[in-house]
């Protein structure tokens, strides 16, 4: 871990997943701001709490609204969104402004590694190395963080 602790908002309507994610977020040295289950709640919390990073599921309690949540968080709240979804192929090409995606089902180790990696990217402004297995970066962010080779090690 480098730099300060990131403030992380969890946007997930499955409570057991959200709580376990919260544990993981704290364990890698980030600070959890809480969990939102609907798009409205997510945007409200993001506006109020200004998270550095929002972990966003696509399917929320009010439908497939996660994509719009990610778009609003990155355009209106100054935060960076990261999708966590089982439907990686259905994300828009521009990732709705999000920095990337962790595909479900993810592993505990996969999430830890991805969070540590993103903490470094967000605080240092460049990537510490190749993208870890389980994480896929949006093209815009890969470029921003100085990655020319987008293929994860296990492609």
């Amino acid at each position, binding site marked *: 871990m480098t730099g300060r602790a990131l403030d992380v908002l969890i946007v997930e309507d499955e409570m057991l997943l959200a709580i376990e994610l919260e*544990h993981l977020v704290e364990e890698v040295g980030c600070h959890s701001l809480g969990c939102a289950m609907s798009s409205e709640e997510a945007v409200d919390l993001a506006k109020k709490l200004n998270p550095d990073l929002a972990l966003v599921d696509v*399917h929320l309690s009010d439908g497939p609204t996660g994509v719009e949540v990610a778009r609003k968080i990155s355009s209106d709240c100054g935060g960076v969104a990261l999708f966590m979804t*089982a439907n990686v192929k259905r994300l828009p090409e521009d990732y709705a402004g999000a920095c990337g995606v962790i*595909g479900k089902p993810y592993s505990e*180790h996969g999430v830890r590694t991805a969070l540590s990696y993103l903490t470094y990217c967000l605080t240092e402004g460049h990537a510490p190395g190749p993208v870890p297995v389980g994480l896929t970066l949006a093209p815009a962010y890969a470029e921003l963080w100085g990655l020319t080779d987008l293929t994860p*090690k296990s492609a």
Partner: protein
Amino acid sequence: MNDISEPARDTGQGAARSPEDLEAIIEARTRALTEALEQKTALLHEVDHRVKNNLQLISSLLLLQNRRVTDPALKASLRGMLGRVNAIATVHRRLFQSEDVERFDVSAFIRDMVADLMGSAGRDDIRIELDLERVEIPAAKAAPFALVVNELLTNALRHGFPEGRGGRIFVGVRRQEGEFRIEIADDGVGLDKDTTPSGFGLTIVQLLCQQLKAKSETTDAEPGARIIVSLPVNGAH
């Protein structure tokens, strides 16, 4: 569609239909079929989505309970089950990532599994060597296969290298004489010659090898242990 502009031979009413009519019928039929296919595809995506989410839910349950319990033996059991669920989850992630949902890329899967297992073991003192040929098996066999590989890898890690002893684990996949072989060899503490190996993990390997019509053979690698699992390539269909 111009090829079918000949009058229909038998319309049941004796009257030949005009080419325009026929084209309209074909167009309507094609549209209906396309729609049906789209619906089926959407349904498949929906089911895939649910399977993945449920696997995620199962692993979250195991992780959450693991946080609550203090008994080391119980913790080890939960960790073991979590590893098995993760192996199946890796299969599902891989299956729908590829274009072909009926074939399963064994080597790509092993690379994912090894990265995850080694990462979560946090053992920098163990080196991994991979020698993987591209081999595919039917998707229906992917989950039992993944469970076998998971047991063998975790076994090599856990029993071969007690804390403080570093070394090397080799994982090889290759085709040979109508079958394909997975070799997992380590230079760890090796087989205990005085006790017969037992345990739940081993039972899983035995049962699933039987299911997959695979042979597994454990030998002394001096130092360490080597296990070779051979699966029939053709019988695998």
